[in-house]
């Protein structure tokens, strides 16, 4: 078996083994945790080794890609889809992130989940999740990608609802499910449109079609929807899917609720890998997006707005995981800006750096929660630097990296994103740049607010906090080191670097995708870099002022600007708006709905007009179902008579 096939096979085998353990433990047999942990760790580590091997192959000059055709997946009529795995430079980057960071998180989780009654089930799901994530990036066509896309979604719901005996967790899983279905609908429609236009769903086929003689004409043709071209419509539909999976405006509401799952899950799927799938999708289809300036502008605007908006929301959260959740949404906004500029490599680089520092932060948060006896409210923490110094160092490094302190990883990646956005020269680019700058200030503030509230000051909690086991702090330490060092992979030319990462990725994503860049001069670049760094540092300073030096300032601010504070604390009431506009009607139509049937035998109060009409018709039909044999036969005879009358009349 070649290395490429080994990646999914190893992960699937791990999931299957742990699945069997899980079944066995349901039957009352005790499976030693060590065994489960070994299987759980072996799967991603083997996959990591295989990925490194594939990476080595791909890097060899003149190779560029590795491809394995496994079997015919769907062969129905003219729809023919092979299960083919492809690894090119872009895939390699994603694979290394998934398996590398995945391995560390798996190791961490074996300690974190210690003693849980469903230990094997958890790791079965986690391995399966990694498997689907690998399939997502390895797939050679949109349907295979979609298989992985749905698979990670499924595992994510299973893991969010892992502690399902609590109904709140179960309904958080449900919320993620429903919101993602909306995105999927867009994805499917976009996929279908592409198939109608190009007759293929293979990435290579699509690209050849796009580059071929009729490609530009076919994609540029009017799609018949609001005068948009086919490329614009398809890209926007696919992007709807991406906003769902990557938690962008307006479909971001599920991600903060998803924090109900165990923390390693949040680290792996809701920070490092799954939520970046939308970014990967846009990068993978960069050749398609390049046909449509509208679509690229939309990606940038949505990314920019999400970046700033979610950053603001993170500012006044008190739940440590909620802060990180909003920060994730905000950071994915940067990635979207990056891929939206037409330079996918900058967006992807932020995916990589973010994976390191966000995973480190989540694992650190998990350690803190673990140490504080499942306390998640930061107001009941504080002073932990003395109790758990190693965690504190790791988290502070990661936070500094995210805030863009030079020369840590976040500095390079964020700066590059903002530079490309500014340089693109379009209105959307400028908008995204402004949002990104403001977001940078927010990032500095909320990250160090988190650090200061958790580790600074005095301990405000109950019970005795303690340092976590070695397996946990070692993994988060490694991730923090990554957050420090990984930025040097893409040192921009202006600082004397060679942008190794960009050069590597752009072999797969040639820059013909990029709009003609009008080059701003070096001094502008210096100026921008300085400004964004300064903003980040200002945010950090403000956090220091408010939360270490003089903790009364936040309250004073809240008293002075009560409305703003309320708006921020209430996360701009987006959830409430959705609640009133969508969730409540849907709930009425779904869960609330059958209570009423049971109570009164009638459905009432379906808010939506069409739904009310549907129910009205349904009720009328129900009355026509009298249960009389004669009525049924009379209807049959009448139908025969009417049909014959129409046909022969």
């Amino acid at each position, binding site marked *: 078996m070649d290395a490429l096939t080994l990646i999914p096979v190893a992960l699937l085998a791990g999931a299957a083994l742990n699945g069997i353990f899980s079944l066995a433990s349901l039957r009352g047999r005790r499976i030693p945790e060590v065994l489960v942990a070994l299987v759980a760790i072996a799967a991603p580590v083997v996959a990591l080794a295989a990925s490194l091997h594939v990476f080595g192959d791909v890097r060899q000059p003149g190779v560029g890609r590795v491809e394995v055709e496994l079997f015919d997946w769907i062969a129905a009529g003219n729809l023919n889809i092979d299960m083919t795995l492809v690894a090119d430079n872009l895939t390699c980057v994603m694979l290394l992130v998934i398996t590398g960071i995945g391995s560390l998180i798996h190791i961490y989780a074996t300690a974190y989940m210690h003693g849980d009654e469903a230990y094997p089930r958890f790791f079965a799901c986690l391995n399966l999740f990694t498997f689907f994530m690998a399939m997502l990036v390895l797939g050679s066509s949109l349907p295979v990608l*979609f298989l992985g896309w749905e698979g990670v979604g499924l595992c994510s719901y299973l893991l969010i609802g892992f502690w399902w005996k609590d109904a709140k967790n179960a309904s958080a899983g449900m919320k993620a499910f429903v919101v993602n279905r909306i995105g999927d609908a867009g994805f499917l429609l976009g996929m279908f449109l592409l198939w109608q236009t190009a007759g293929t769903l293979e990435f290579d086929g699509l690209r050849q079609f796009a580059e071929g003689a009729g490609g530009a004409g076919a994609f540029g043709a009017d799609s018949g929807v609001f005068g948009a071209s086919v490329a614009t419509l398809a890209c926007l539909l696919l992007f709807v899917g991406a906003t769902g999976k990557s938690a962008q405006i307006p479909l971001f509401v599920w991600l903060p609720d998803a924090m109900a799952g165990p923390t390693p899950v949040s680290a792996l799927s809701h920070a490092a890998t799954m939520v970046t799938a939308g970014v990967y999708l846009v990068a993978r289809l960069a050749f398609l997006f390049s046909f449509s300036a509208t679509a690229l502008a939309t990606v940038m605007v949505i990314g920019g707005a999400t970046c700033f908006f979610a950053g603001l929301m993170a500012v006044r959260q008190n739940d440590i995981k909620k802060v990180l959740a909003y920060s994730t949404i905000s950071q994915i906004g940067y990635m979207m800006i990056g891929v939206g500029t037409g330079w996918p490599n900058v967006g992807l680089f932020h995916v990589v750096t973010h994976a390191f520092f966000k995973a480190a932060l989540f694992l650190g948060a998990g350690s803190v929660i673990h140490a504080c006896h499942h306390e998640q409210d930061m107001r009941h923490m504080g002073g932990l630097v003395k109790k758990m110094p190693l965690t504190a160092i790791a988290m502070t490094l990661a936070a500094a990296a995210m805030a863009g302190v030079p020369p840590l990883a976040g500095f390079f990646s964020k700066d590059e994103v903002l530079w490309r956005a500014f340089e693109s020269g379009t209105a959307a680019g400028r908008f995204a740049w402004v949002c990104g700058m403001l977001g940078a200030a927010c990032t500095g503030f909320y990250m160090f607010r988190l650090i200061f509230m958790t580790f600074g000051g005095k301990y405000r909690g109950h019970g005795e906090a303690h340092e976590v086991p070695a397996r946990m702090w070692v993994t988060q330490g490694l991730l923090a080191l990554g957050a420090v060092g990984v930025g040097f992979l893409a040192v921009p030319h202006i600082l004397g670097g060679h942008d190794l990462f960009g050069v590597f990725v752009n072999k797969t994503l040639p820059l013909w995708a990029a709009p003609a860049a009008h080059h701003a001069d070096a001094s502008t670049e210096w100026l921008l870099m300085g400004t964004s760094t300064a903003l980040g540092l200002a945010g950090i300073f403000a956090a220091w002022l408010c939360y270490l030096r003089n903790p009364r300032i936040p309250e004073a601010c809240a008293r002075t600007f009560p409305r703003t504070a309320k708006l921020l604390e209430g996360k701009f009431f987006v959830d409430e708006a959705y609640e009133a506009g969508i969730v409540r009607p849907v709930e009425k139509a779904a869960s609330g709905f059958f209570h009423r*049937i049971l109570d009164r035998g009638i459905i009432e109060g379906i808010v939506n007009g069409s739904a009310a009409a*549907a129910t009205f018709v349904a009720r009328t039909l129900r009355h026509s179902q009298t*249960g009389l044999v004669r009525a049924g036969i009379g209807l049959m005879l009448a139908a025969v008579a009417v049909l014959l009358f129409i046909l022969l009349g």
Partner: protein
Amino acid sequence: MLHNPAIWTLLLLAAGCVTVLLFGHGTALRPGRGGAIANITLLLVLSVWWVHAFHGHGEGFDGMFLLDRMGMLAAAGSAFAGFVTTVMLTGWLRRQGRECAEVHALMLLAVAGMQVMVQTRHLAVLFLGLETMSVALYAMCAALRERRAAVESGFKYFLTGAFASALLLLAIAIIFGLTGSFHLDGAETKLAHAGELGVIALVLFLAAFGFKLSLVPFHQWAPDVYEGAPTPVTGFMATAVKLTGFMTLLRLVPALGALSQHLLLILAVLAIATMLVGNLGALVQTRVKRMLAYSSIAHAGYLLAALCVVLAAPAGSAAAEGASVALSFYLVVYVLMNLLAFGVLALNERAGDEPLLLNDLAGLRNRRPWMAAAMLAAMLSLAGIPLTGGFIAKWQVFTALLGECGGAHGTLMTVLASSVALCSVIGLAYYLRVVMTMYVEKGEDAKPLPVVPFAPMLLVMLLAGLVLWVGIVPDGLALGSEAISGFLRTLF
């Protein structure tokens, strides 16, 4: 003729039936063996099909008998449905305090009738097979004859069915009068000049098949009969009858199409009406079984839409071929997911007349996680959510429909496609309602559920696995089936 698998299976079924009737009865001390004998017979039948790997082609008895892939698939499918139903039925009847060995014999006869029906193009034989199946089903519906609902269900089915067979007989008589033969092969030219009588035959034929397939407006019996019949039998009616009925219709469509150029339009209208009425009807039900009855009506509409594509695409073209593959695939998935849903239902029904309400499933996730997961698979698949067989099936039908949008009947196909999309959305509401009840409701005050024996539970899990397996690897069933064939052939 003895090397012919179809004849072997018929003989097996007949022998099994007689054995059940002679030796299947239980006594007060010893439970009956009827179910076991029927199961063994059906397994033997299935393995005969598998040994022949659904390949082969042939004719016999002056063309009254026809062996081809489509017929074999339907025959094996009905035998599989019969097997699952018999396993469920044995336990279900025992829980109701009854034995009813004859029901198992009738099940074998119903499967035999279906097999005869799908393996012919001779109208008289088709009629005979159809009626054998129907007579057996009438009695099975009313098996618990001491219950009001069961007898009512059986009698309604019987009366409407007898009416429909009279329609079918007249239709067959007219076609015979027009062509002088019951063979449909090569009769297209004669049928094309049939004039008014031909149209009459066509309409009568559609009415009779519309009854069997519960197409609107020939559907009124279906919810009542499905509700009153023993739940496993309902599952059998909802799956095997539709499978064989649609396969037969698919086979006859070219000949019927010759009778009137408006056939496509009629079928499309029936399809739209069927999906709408089925989905809307299901929306307001609180009794799960009745909801599933309406849901099966709705699915008959989707299936009919696929049949419309077969008819709309130029005969013999790749598109027509693709559409009939899509229809067959949908049928197979439909059988699997409905057997699963009705199976879960049957396992959760208490003894007695009381219908299972939606609320009885509340909190099933906590009470029976595996059962809830199986039902979840069934509901998601019925709703057509990705990664389930139902999604792939619906996707294929949808693709086939849209593929014909540019063809000669573009407008009609577009209308059909949008109806399928609209109705799927309505469907989501009631399927997800079941999911919400199982997973979000607490269900602390729900009534206790009956004890579940091992074998049916295993079967339910197997079905759930198959539904998901088809959703992830659409060719998986064919691959698995070929693997079993290879294995069996090494044994013989």
